[in-house]
């Protein structure tokens, strides 16, 4: 099809504009001639053939809830099967692609992750005219269409669609909402597998920035649909498992008066005549809820970290799944609860989301996630020993660096065959001031980290519930006790021993699936360089 282009009007000085005006006049004349020629040549064909599909296709009037067609029953594409052979159904889906050739038009309709083939072919009996076929071929990609069609068994399975054994043969086709003709990215390109075995396969891929700039289109790919359904599943499993264990869900404030974790990485907001901060973690409020007799709490909410980290695993805003629990005698009561929650979550994902995981696996390489029940628990000195044997030395009171953690993850995987493990008894020096020291060894603490595929997902500890010890530890860490006076005060009102931890939802999903970038698991990610969409 020949596209007509607007002549570019040059904005410049008078002399230039005169030339441009002449040029514009010339192109306009040319276009007019072209249009006339087209009209004259087009007219005979449309005039000569009457359109007997009148009233069976076209652009639907904008649905303004006028009350029409409320009796129409729609079928989901994923439910189309051989069992419905011969039935007539209404389907609302997106037109993914269409290929018109003379008397036939093949189209692919897509509804979330399911695709089915649609056939519109000229047939006087069934009142499909040439104009209707042409109309279908001209519907822009990604438009939403309503189609009335018969479900027909295919002679050979349709390889390119998820519904392989049947296709739809159209009776009526209406556009509900048209997409513009030039899309910033093609869904097929965005959904193409990263690595293809076929040497002849197209190599067009869409890079991450383009995807994130046009997130609405990018999210329509089957893999992304599956990823975010898995993410919803993680959140739901977290809630259900903890609620069953007797936890209460709370919601903590995000606008706070003092930085909770440390002064450096906090966003400031203007708050009426002064300023406030966006919460880096719900830590303080979880503990206050424990002191307020809620015993076992969890919270799901936004966490804001103003770290200028442009890595594959950091976002400035993410969803935190945090929990805090009081215990009777030993913080391992909490540690085992958290570990058990994770194990149940992994099991739930494996059993309930198998098809979604497979869909993600069609585009990205997904290694099944291995875990043990009960989860593997190592102590920090053991980890240091394992690293030493592999040739990496870690100091007695040092934290593990990211490459050390990654190597340790591989060593654990090789030795114990698990992608998830808990590392207990970290050195006290590298933990926050509110971490309870180990009673047996002052260099260590009652704190733990949990890892998935060699990357840290949870950091937790037994918290100091004694106000005097807390004030002393704060002083030793150089934290200004006046700034956290309210926090310390809450422990003067009687508080049970408690421990807890927090995980990042996006990071858990990324590591469970084995994806390479956290932006793939955040619907509208925020990082130091991106605040939109």
């Amino acid at each position, binding site marked *: 099809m020949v596209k007509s282009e607007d002549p570019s009007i040059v904005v410049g000085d008078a002399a230039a504009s005169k030339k441009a005006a002449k040029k514009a006049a010339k192109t306009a004349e040319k276009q007019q001639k072209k249009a006339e020629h087209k009209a004259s040549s087009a007219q005979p064909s449309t005039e000569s053939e009457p359109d007997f599909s009148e009233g069976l296709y076209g652009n639907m009037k904008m649905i303004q809830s006028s009350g029409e067609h409320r009796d129409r029953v729609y079928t989901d594409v994923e439910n189309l099967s051989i069992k419905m052979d011969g039935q007539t159904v209404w389907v609302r889906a997106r037109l993914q692609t269409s290929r018109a050739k003379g008397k036939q038009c093949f189209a692919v309709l897509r509804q979330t992750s399911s695709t089915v083939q649609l056939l519109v072919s000229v047939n006087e009996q069934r009142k499909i005219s040439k104009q209707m076929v042409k109309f279908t071929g001209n519907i822009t990609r990604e438009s939403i269409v309503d189609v009335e069609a018969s479900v027909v068994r295919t002679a050979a399975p349709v390889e390119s669609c998820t519904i392989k054994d049947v296709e739809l043969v159209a009776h009526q086709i209406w556009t509900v909402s048209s997409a513009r003709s030039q899309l910033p990215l093609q869904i097929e390109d965005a959904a193409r597998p990263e690595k293809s075995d076929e040497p002849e396969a197209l190599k067009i891929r869409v890079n991450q920035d383009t995807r994130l700039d046009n997130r609405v289109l990018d999210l329509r790919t089957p893999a992304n649909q599956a990823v975010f359904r898995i993410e919803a599943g993680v959140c739901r499993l977290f809630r259900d498992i903890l609620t069953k264990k007797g936890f209460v869900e709370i919601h903590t404030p995000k606008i706070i008066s003092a930085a909770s974790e440390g002064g450096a990485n906090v966003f400031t907001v203007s708050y009426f005549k002064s300023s406030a901060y966006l919460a880096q973690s719900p830590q303080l409020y979880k503990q206050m809820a424990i002191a307020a007799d809620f015993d076992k709490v969890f919270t799901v909410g936004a966490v804001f970290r103003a770290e200028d980290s442009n890595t*594959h695993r950091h976002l400035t805003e993410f969803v935190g799944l945090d929990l805090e629990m009081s215990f009777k005698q030993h913080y391992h009561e909490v540690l085992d609860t958290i570990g058990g929650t994770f194990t149940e979550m992994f099991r739930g994902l494996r059993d309930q989301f198998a098809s979604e995981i497979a869909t993600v696996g069609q585009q990205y390489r997904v*290694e099944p996630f291995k875990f043990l029940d009960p989860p593997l628990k190592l102590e920090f000195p053991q980890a240091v020993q394992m690293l030493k*044997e*592999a*040739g*990496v030395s870690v100091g007695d009171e040092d934290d593990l660096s990211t*490459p050390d953690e*990654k*190597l340790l*993850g*591989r*060593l654990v*995987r*090789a030795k114990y065959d698990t992608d998830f493990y808990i590392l207990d008894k970290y050195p006290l020096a590298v933990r926050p001031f509110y971490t309870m020291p180990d009673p047996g060894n002052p260099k260590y603490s009652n704190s733990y980290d949990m890892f998935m*595929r060699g990357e840290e997902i949870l950091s937790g500890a037994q918290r100091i519930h004694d106000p005097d010890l807390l004030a002393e530890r704060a002083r030793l860490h150089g934290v200004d006790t006046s700034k956290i006076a309210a926090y310390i005060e809450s422990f003067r009102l009687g508080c049970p021993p408690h421990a807890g931890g927090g995980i990042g939802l996006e990071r858990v999903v990324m590591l469970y699936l*084995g994806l*390479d970038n956290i932006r793939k698991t955040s619907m509208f990610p925020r990082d130091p360089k991106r605040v939109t969409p």
Partner: protein
Amino acid sequence: MPKMSTNNVDVIKMIGKYLDVSVGAVCYNTDKVPTAVLENKNVEGFVTIILSMVSKCGTASSEEQRLLTYQWLEYISMFSNQAVANSTFAFKFLQEINRALQSNTYLTGQFLTIADVALYYIVYPLLEHMSVAERDAFVHLCRWSKHIQAQPRVCHNRPPLPLNAVSLSVLAPAVH
């Protein structure tokens, strides 16, 4: 970057220790060619010195083995100095050797030759400072190094390289 470079003269001295052959004063002559004094005769050239030291030990080897050993020693003498000086060149050098060792137990095939020992001495400083992640790119080279350094008399003045994580790239390959 390697702190201790093993230039060709040092390699000759180390091989002398390995073979228990006295090497005399080894140094570079005016043409930058290593020269040694063996049995009161001046011998010039890295490969020549090493091969004459080996012949003094009297180990039997086939014609093919001798030729392959000679070729490998020539290769080593040509590229070793550049590899030590230039890290991108070192990377390519190690990649070539890694590829050669992919389906060979030793450089020349099935038997240990002096070329293996000489190359081990050259490669030692290059591997010494690599992290586990970097060594992942040279799986075969590491496997071979671990084997060579376990042979008797090879490690006489330097501790063997810690190469315990070689099997990790197979058991738990690094992702991303």
